[in-house]
């Protein structure tokens, strides 16, 4: 019962909500001991994971990502699926704390017994968002969630991070086409497997239709991220929960196409490689930052750099050198 008790593999596989949640906490933990327990647990669960469709959802703030997840999540549950949602919330650089209000935008889904929603602060004491999200996804899969949705903060760096862990990358767009194309980086558009124009309702519906044809044209000019799949442009109203069936049809046909072409497996294997590398990167960073013999030098040099007495390049070289000698 204690907060410290380790979650059991069997409980997770049976879908015990509390055990799943505790396991995720272990994976997110910055305590070496908990981290280790987490990794052991994860390894034991890996054979049970991997069967879900992993969907990444992105779009500019306010485009309706959370509302969309509520709509599609409820739709999927109605179809008999079990849905896990992972949302990464930005933490304040200054205080490290964060406010996570994701569940307020997915009220009905949050209450549903077949849904599991876990917002995570992006901070942690050391980075590693990507690893944590990926591993959390695997825990949810092992627990029997067959659709896992990852919502990212906005449009930018995090997209490539998410793309490196999901099967299907869905980009939500606003109906007012002109401004939008500029707001979204070309790189992000290239990653998208499905582009969905949201808020196709009320007065905005005709605008949304225009946007849909605009994007269709624009997208043809871009290279697609998959060989066997041409990105589709769809429309929906997340608010009125319309258009979910078509989107789900497209997602299923995406999966089928990629499975047949073999790209599905290929992508997943490539992602596993990236996962290994992100573990290596994080491990190195943790080792470096926490190295007992480096602590003093780090804080001294950091101060020197911040006060302008030392060039950052010089300081970095010095630190890396000491680290190399220390780890010999």
């Amino acid at each position, binding site marked *: *019962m204690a907060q410290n008790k380790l979650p059991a593999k069997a409980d997770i596989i049976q879908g015990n909500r509390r055990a799943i949640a505790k396991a995720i906490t272990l994976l997110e933990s910055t305590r070496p001991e908990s981290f280790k327990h987490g990794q052991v647990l994860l390894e034991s669960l890996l054979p049970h994971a991997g069967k879900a469709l992993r969907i990444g959802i992105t779009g500019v703030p306010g485009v309706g990502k959370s509302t969309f997840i509520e709509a599609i999540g409820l739709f999927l549950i109605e179809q008999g699926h079990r849905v896990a949602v992972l949302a990464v919330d930005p933490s304040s650089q200054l*205080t490290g*704390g*964060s406010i996570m*209000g994701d569940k307020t935008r997915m009220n009905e889904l949050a209450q549903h017994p077949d849904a599991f929603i876990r917002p995570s602060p992006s901070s942690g004491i050391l980075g590693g968002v990507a690893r944590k999200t990926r591993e959390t996804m695997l825990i949810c899969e092992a627990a029997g969630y067959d659709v896992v949705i990852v919502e990212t903060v906005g449009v930018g760096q995090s997209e490539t991070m998410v793309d490196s862990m999901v099967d299907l990358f869905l980009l939500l767009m606003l109906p007012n086409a002109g401004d939008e194309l500029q707001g979204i980086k070309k790189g992000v558009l290239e990653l998208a497997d499905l582009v969905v124009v949201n808020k196709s309702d009320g007065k905005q519906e005709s605008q949304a239709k225009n946007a849909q044809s605009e994007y269709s044209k624009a997208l043809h000019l871009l290279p697609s991220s998959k060989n066997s799949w041409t990105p589709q442009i769809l429309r929906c109203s997340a608010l009125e929960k319309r258009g979910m069936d078509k989107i789900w049809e497209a997602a299923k046909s995406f999966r089928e196409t990629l499975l047949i072409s073999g790209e599905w497996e290929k992508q997943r294997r490539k992602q596993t490689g990236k996962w290994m590398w992100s573990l290596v990167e994080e491990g190195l960073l943790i080792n470096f930052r926490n190295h007992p013999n480096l602590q003093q030098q780090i804080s001294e040099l950091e101060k020197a750099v911040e006060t302008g007495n030392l060039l950052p390049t010089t300081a970095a070289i010095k630190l890396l050198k000491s680290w190399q000698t220390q780890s010999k």
Partner: protein
Amino acid sequence: MSKSKTKTPSSPTLKDWEKQASRELKGKATSSIHWKTTEEIEIKPLYTAEDLEKLGYTETLSGFSPFTRGPRATMYAGRPWTIRQYAGFSTAEESNSFYRKNLAAGQKGLSVAFDLATHRGYDSDHKRVVGDVGKAGVAIDSVEDMKILFDQIPLDQMSVSMTMNGAVLPILAAYVVAAEEQGVKQEQLSGTIQNDILKEFMVRNTYIYPPAASMRIVGDIIEHTSAHMPRYNSVSISGYHIQEAGATAVQELAFTLGNGLEYVRTAINRGMTIDSFAPRLSFFFGVGMNFYMEIAKLRAARFLWANLIKQFNPKKEQSAMLRTHCQTSGWSLTEQDPFNNIVRTTIEALAATLGGTQSLHTNAFDEALGLPTETSARVALNTQLILQEEAGIPHVVDPFGGSYFMESLTSSLIEEATKLLDEIEKIGGMTKAVESGIPKQRIEASAARRQALIDHGEEVIVGVNKYQVENAEPVEVREIDNSAVRKAQIQRLKKIKKNRDSNKVDTALNAISNAAENGEGNLLDLSIEAIRLRATVGEISAAMEKIWGRYNAPIHSISGVYAKSFPDQKEIKQVRDEINDFAKKAGRRPRIMVAKMGQDGHDRGAKVIATAFADLGFDVDIAPLFQTPEEVVKQAIENDVHVIGISSQAAGHKTLIKLLMEILKKENSEDIVVVAGGVIPPQDYDFLKDLGVACIFGPGTPIPGAAREVLAAIANKV
């Protein structure tokens, strides 16, 4: 300027005054004693005729546009303001007897406070309202309850104000039918329905349907009342709640008048002429402790409205005339040393009347503890009677009119509110602005700033952060047995449902659903019909919910404002260090879920706690509003929080926290710490502690200290 103002050579000039003042200030410039209000309006220590000249001030008269000096020529000299105390609790029987006592004691108009189940369109037997029935207002499920509520109160003579927004259709309908069955016709009814849905989405949180559908309802009501109820105010455009949620006077003015404009446009878009409804729009403002500012605010509001309405080319003077009700600020009242509140309320009431309100509610001194007792209600009522009958206030119209300072301040407020109004118009009006969440975020930022200043001691609240007393004498608190009320209500519901013609009721309810779906017909007309047939408040609400769904206003959060507003960062840093230590040891930051249960929509406390805790270094989950204990537990488990922080203001705490603890136990999750805060009277602390609640934080709690206590409670369990 008149001749008498020309100065003789010997009379001192403003320069002379500067010199003398600077001497008194030991050489400092007078600008060092300028006062910057929370509105960022700078106030000088001395105003002169020069200030008025600069403004190009021209004199106006009460009773004439732009009505800055008052809507009526004689104001209180002709007839004092209406004393209208807002009240309601428990059953219709209990509230009725409370009303009749107050009327006998000198109150002049009624103002009904409904319970939160009713506000949100649930009958008392609904599973989501077990903690809410009869608690923070009176429970009304049907016209039978409404008839009891007004028993022996002649509705052709009594003006009745009803604070109802979400379930406005069935409630207004029930009032109309209760009158009808008393033998009173609609055209005889006088009073006000709040019917101001936009501010619900922003600050008051008793909405039911999405914004567009809700605006349709507002329109239907304006249409019906302007055709059939000539003496009845169809909307009470409310700034009070906006202020109480944390807004500055400028924000309150701009958002309220902006909302007003939206209602005007709604009616005009339906083809109504401005003069057919605008004279029946009324206003409602809050009056807090910033004495001069509040007087100026009411004057500025009248001026602004008169000018805003011009664009619609009214022919009637009354169309542009702002008439308002006011309420003293509940937020300014403290749990600590509660008798101080009588003084605060008196000052606020004075400001409201000097500002020229048409009617007034004065709060009771036990405001921060619970609903008023008979004693505290009597003192509140007497406060107004004393102002009217002993202090001689009513004899003069707008006594501050022409004051160098007051006219300057009024003009500053007009200027600042206009800027904000322009900003809103650029977004496309208040409906759009509300959807974007911007006004709410601005208000929350003001609230967070205010909280920081109080927690730091910069803003003094006597008895709270300065001049505290150790053992203030405890005061009696009204307690309502909600399970008894609920039982009685359910009984009556059963009886009604048995005795009515259910086929007819179904037909009437279907007609409402159809009208909601196809946009045709007047929903108030249809609701009146359904109510006559004994359809219930919950059934009528559900008939529309079926079509429109139940809306959840998106919750936005702010961050950084609280910590930044602390003039001195020392205390903040201390807490952050403690939290960082914890995070190092525990492997993650302390994680709290701030949650509200039941239909209690007071979110100022929860939001300020959430943003401040995050600023201090907590990871904070905000749960959606209106959760059941089961839902809170599910989310807390999923997010694996260390602690659930329940914020409770509407007296559901005993019922709902008890359920919460039981469910935590059932879910094998007692390791999650539970803390609670809000309006929890001290006599309930033991009850909650016995249930296992780790800490309880009442009104006036400084947040950094609370954060440390919560941290310690977690550390204890980890």
